[in-house]
């Protein structure tokens, strides 16, 4: 059974990559469907990562990933301020702690040049400590990578998806793809989900951890996703003055290693660990992982020993057996696979969208840009830009922007009501956290969770009991 008008393109997966693709499509004459298995946009791999906007200096030269990260950086750095996505261009320092690592630095600078990034500069130990005075002792030399930036991992996919919906795309949540079939019309795919049966001319597979399973539904068998678990520790905002740049280690053959970085929320983050796990739902933190990160954090920045840990995040990166993105177009079946998008996906998302749309256009899909599109500006969650509670004029117009409900993160009553009434509304406490930061702070809800849940319950027509038992993080895949 097929229902409704067929879509020109269905995008499977509303993570940062799928949402970026849907946004580009919605800005053309194509009708677009965005299907998400979970209960919210950006609630899988996209929500728990190092949140860095990469220059791509360290990509493997000549790969598609290198090209799309480089292009994606430019696109997103330009788009972010217009869309209200917090970005801070802090720059990175890549630190060598022994002679072997010192010897590796020139090759890293050279690889950056081959990736088209010329701004890497060597730093002496003295120059490094002048820039990072709280860094642990023993650093011998470093590279400065001035354009590495931090970005909000929550706002980015939400901004893309909101833009897509505002421009006419249809978003279906809790709609995992169960089956694909051919329609009576040979030009159409029939997509079966618990939310209904949808028809589409083209299908884009941006299903992240599940891209391999979807790929097999379309008769391909090009790769297998082996989740790589990454645990992250987030330190109290009071630790923020201890770290000024993104502090990177010298990568080894097997891993990029553990970094220390400020976040756009004003915390300090340490991570990630890297561990291949067999289970695509194994987003659990481990005792060994957390203890290891804590020890590493205290060695890299000894001052962190005196600060509290505010939160622990665990993400699963969609790693495959291949060393590059797995983006493949099958014109005969009108199908694009966007697989193997690893931790660089946040940076590359807009370039991936551009690349995928160009590919579909070349394969015969008419994608004509519209001249009546609307741009969306999201509410700011970043500390480097004015937050509502800081804006006297705004509070004078709307007093609830002066009513702080979540005290640690300074989230106001009106921001919570806004999130409940957004284009893509918050449907759970986790969804609310990603839209407002409410309860994400050092008290983790000790002071405010009852008040926050009450506000969301009343504004969203859900019961508090439902909100407190509804967990889209663990159940949403």
């Amino acid at each position, binding site marked *: 059974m097929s229902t409704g008008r067929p879509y020109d393109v269905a995008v499977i997966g509303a993570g940062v990559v799928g949402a970026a693709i849907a946004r580009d499509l919605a800005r053309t004459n194509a009708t677009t469907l965005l299907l998400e298995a979970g209960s919210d946009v950006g609630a899988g791999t996209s929500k728990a990562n190092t949140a860095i906007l990469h220059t791509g200096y360290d990509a493997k030269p000549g790969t598609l990933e290198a090209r799309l990260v480089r292009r994606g950086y430019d696109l997103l750095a330009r788009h972010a301020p217009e869309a*209200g996505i917090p970005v801070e261009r802090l720059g990175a320092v890549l630190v060598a702690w022994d002679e072997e690592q010192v010897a590796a630095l020139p090759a890293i600078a050279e690889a950056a040049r081959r990736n088209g990034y010329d701004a890497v500069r060597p730093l002496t130990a003295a120059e490094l400590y002048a820039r990072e005075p709280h860094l642990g002792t023993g650093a011998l030399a470093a590279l400065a990578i001035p354009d590495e930036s931090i970005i909000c991992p929550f706002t980015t996919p939400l901004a893309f998806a909101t833009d897509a919906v505002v421009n006419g795309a249809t978003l279906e949540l809790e709609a995992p793809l169960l089956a694909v079939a051919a329609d009576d019309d040979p030009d159409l795919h029939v997509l079966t989900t618990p939310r209904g049966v949808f028809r589409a001319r083209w299908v884009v597979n941006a299903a992240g951890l599940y891209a391999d399973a979807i790929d097999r539904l379309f008769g391909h068998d090009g790769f297998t996703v082996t989740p790589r678990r990454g645990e992250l520790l*987030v330190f109290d905002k*009071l630790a923020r003055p201890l770290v000024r740049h993104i502090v990177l280690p010298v990568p080894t053959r097997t891993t990029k290693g553990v970094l220390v970085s400020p976040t756009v929320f004003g915390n300090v983050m340490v991570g990630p660990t890297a561990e291949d796990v067999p289970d695509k739902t194994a*987003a*659990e*933190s481990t*005792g060994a*992982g957390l203890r290891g990160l*804590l020890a590493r954090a205290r060695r890299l920045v000894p001052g962190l020993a005196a600060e*509290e840990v*505010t*939160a*622990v995040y*665990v993400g699963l990166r969609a790693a495959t057996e291949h060393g590059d993105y797995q983006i493949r177009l099958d014109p005969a079946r009108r199908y694009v696979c966007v697989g193997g998008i690893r931790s660089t996906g946040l940076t590359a998302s807009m370039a991936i969208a551009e690349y995928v749309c160009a590919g579909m256009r070349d394969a015969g899909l008419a994608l004509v840009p519209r001249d009546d599109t*609307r741009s*969306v*500006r*999201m*509410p*700011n969650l970043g500390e480097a830009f*004015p937050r*509502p*509670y*800081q*804006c*006297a*004029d*705004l*509070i*004078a*117009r*709307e*007093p609830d*922007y*002066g*009513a*702080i409900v979540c*005290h640690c993160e*300074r989230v106001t009553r*009106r*921001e919570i009501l*806004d999130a409940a009434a*957004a284009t893509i509304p918050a449907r759970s406490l986790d969804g609310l956290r990603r839209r407002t930061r409410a309860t994400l702070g*050092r*008290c*983790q*809800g*000790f*002071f405010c*969770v*009852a008040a926050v*849940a009450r506000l969301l319950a009343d504004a969203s027509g859900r019961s508090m*009991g439902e909100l*407190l*038992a*509804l*967990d889209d*993080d*663990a*159940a949403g895949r």
Partner: protein
Amino acid sequence: MTMETAAAGVAGGGADVTDVADVAIVGGGPAGLAAALELRRRGVPRVVVLEREAQAGGIPRHTHHSGFGLRDLHRLLSGPAYAARYVEKARAAGVELRTSTSVTGWSGAREIELTSPGGRTRLQAAAIILATGCRERPRAARLIPGARPLGVLTTGALQQLVYLEGQRIGARAVIVGAEHVSFSAVATLAHGGARTIALVTDDVTHQSVAPLVWATAGWRRVPLVPHSAVTRIIGGRRVEAVEVTDLRSGRVRRIDCDTVVFTGDWIPDHELARAAGLIMDATRGPRVDLALATSADGVFAAGNLVHAAEAADVAALSGRHAARAAHAFLQERRGGSAEPALAIECRPPLRWISPGVLGGGTLPPRGRFVLRVDERVWRGALEVSQGLRCVWREPPRALLPGRSVRLEAAWVASIDPYGPAPVVRVAGA
């Protein structure tokens, strides 16, 4: 451009108005309100209390058991009745109580930035008392690994959900901790419809008192799991189980439950104190002298911000103490004492002593110092020495972690203010 919300793309700034007060008190819990009352009693004209919640009263607002008010009001009240009584008294005494008002920063040495639905203002005060209280360390700060399901709470969140919002809380709960507040959580859970199936502590037994243990966990036959720790949380949408590790044998067992409550392990809510650049103490609150004066002239600290956590009435008495010192400061226009601030050192297993420095008079709040031990001492005698001279020794007694250990202050008068730092130790340890 479509603005997703009215706050999207706004610019900061706007008109800031500056207001003045004799004393500004940050925090309208027991310590802050008791301080305000004391200042009004002493005739200080303009006393402003800034409370970020819609109702003043602090933690007792949602602590429904009895036992409040004994030491300060000389009667026994429930938490909400106690909170209401302080609010009433403060209003009657002419305290200016501003609720839904957050202190969001400092704009001068004794000038604070306020944010409320009424707008952004500044308040300049001749003296400031910080009484911002404390909170329990949540799961993340304790680095408890595992999944992140719903149903993981602190006692503070639990109390608010049950008593302020009337929510039912699961069916089977595991409590982490076995101090006073942990046993209060047993009663709150029962009120919310949940049975406590275990209290897990790393100590050899609980750190509370027999009557409270009996009134909550004892008659309900809640088992105490000693020398153990919750080492993993299991669950999907909601908690399904915890793994509990015996710290002696390393044996791991699974306890099925749908709720985990992290209790105690208090930390002062010290953001504003640190934002002011105050010298901090091992209590993780601001370092104070015997008058509860901080390292900044005219800025005092009171209650559980100084050291966490005491009962509400003890916090209130600390508020009164700070108020007396603030009043003296207003009259003399000078801070602290003329003598050098002499830090008190303490030796393991003592973690900290509060107040942490001498000066500001001869008596700390309630005439005693408060200490914490890191581990249980069955029989230990507190001993104070300066150099080679032993100046005080208390009779031996049990010293329990998570509980306040008191030390009489009579020895302060015999300390040479120009001598070496006095040292407190547990004799024999």
